[in-house]
Each structure stands twice: as C-alpha cells, then as structure tokens.
C-alpha cells in the first residue's frame, strides 16, 4: 500500500504550477472585469511573476532529479513545442499584417494555452517513441 506521502507527491509536485495558474487567472479576471487605476492594473499584470519564478525553480529542480531518458523525453518535447510556437507566432504576425487581427480574437494572452498544448503534444510523441 502506498504511504500518504507518496500519494500526496503528485499534488506537491503540481503545487507550483497550480499556484502560478491561480495567480494568472486571478490577474486576468481582475484586469478584464474591473475599472482600476492604471498603476494598479500594471501591478496586477506583474503579480504572476513571483509564482512563476517559484514554478521555474521547481521545474528546474524536477528536471535535475530525472534520469537520462526522462530528460531526453523533455528535451524532445521542447524540440517539438518550440518550433510550433515559433510557427504560431510567425503566422499570427503575418495574419495581423494581412487582415488586421482584433486583440479580442488574437493576442499574446491567447498564446499561453497553445504553448502548454504544444509541450504536452511533444511529451506524448517523445514517450511513444521510447515505450
């Protein structure tokens, strides 16, 4: 039977990501739904930076604790995600020139879910290769 600490391990590992996500969503909701002074809006926009630094430190520490195959899988995931992100940014930039995209339809804030999706797509492709 798994001990409580090993059962809670995935939750503890996901905590930095959850924290960053919560701060990001709260900042977005606050900026979208309230009329605040511009200095406060800037402050709220910068609010997700500390939890992101915590997430980054946890991610680097997690990568360092992995074995060589797991590290390679994550490297290959990045090798998929990074060019796909470049492609998306390039196409969006060109589409903006071509038809003038509305910021409500497409802007930097819309990119984030795609980056995460590309990374997980890369992870799935890499793990399939070594299974």
């Amino acid at each position, binding site marked *: 039977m798994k001990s409580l600490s090993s059962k809670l391990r995935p939750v503890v590992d996901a905590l930095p990501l959850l924290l960053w996500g919560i701060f990001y969503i709260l900042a977005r909701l606050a900026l979208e739904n309230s009329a605040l002074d511009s200095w406060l809006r800037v402050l709220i926009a910068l609010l997700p930076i500390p939890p992101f630094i915590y997430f980054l430190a946890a991610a680097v520490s997690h990568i360092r604790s992995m*074995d*060589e*195959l*797991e590290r390679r899988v994550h490297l290959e995931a990045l090798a998929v995600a990074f060019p796909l992100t470049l492609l998306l940014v390039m196409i969006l930039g060109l589409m903006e020139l071509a038809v003038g995209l509305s910021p409500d339809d497409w802007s930097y804030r819309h990119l984030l879910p795609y980056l995460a999706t590309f990374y997980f797509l890369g992870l799935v492709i890499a793990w399939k290769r*070594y*299974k």
Partner: protein
Amino acid sequence: MKNRLRVLRAEYDWSQAELAERLGVSRQTINAVETGKYEPSLSLAFKIASLFEKQIEEIFQPDEAEVDNLQKLNANDAKF
C-alpha cells in the same frame, strides 16, 4: 546497438523495477534500453556493466550494420 540486458536480468531474477532501483533510473528507462529503443549514456552503461560484473562489450554490442559502417570508414581512412 544490441544488448543482453534482458538475459542478464533474467539470470539474476530481477524485475525491471528492481534493476531500475539498483541503477537509480526509472523502469521505463530499463524497458527502453532492453527493447533497443534507447541507447544508454556511457556512465549508465558502465553502471550496468559494474552491477552485472561484466565488461561493457559483454553486454552491449554494435549491430551488424554499424560494424559494416565502421569497417567502411576505416577502409576509406586507409586509402587517404
């Protein structure tokens, strides 16, 4: 690259998980090495060899195609 990891593991009657724990890697890594989908680093190959008290070349051998390529390269080098 061919390897005898599965055979050696069977001789020692270890599961993939047991071998993984002894080597400090994941079970997936052992599986990927055994099935030839992943070639281990030199340091992991040395660890494996040391654990089974063998020389690296007793566990890992190049494929025939790799040997052919090496022989061709050596022959080309000899020409120049």
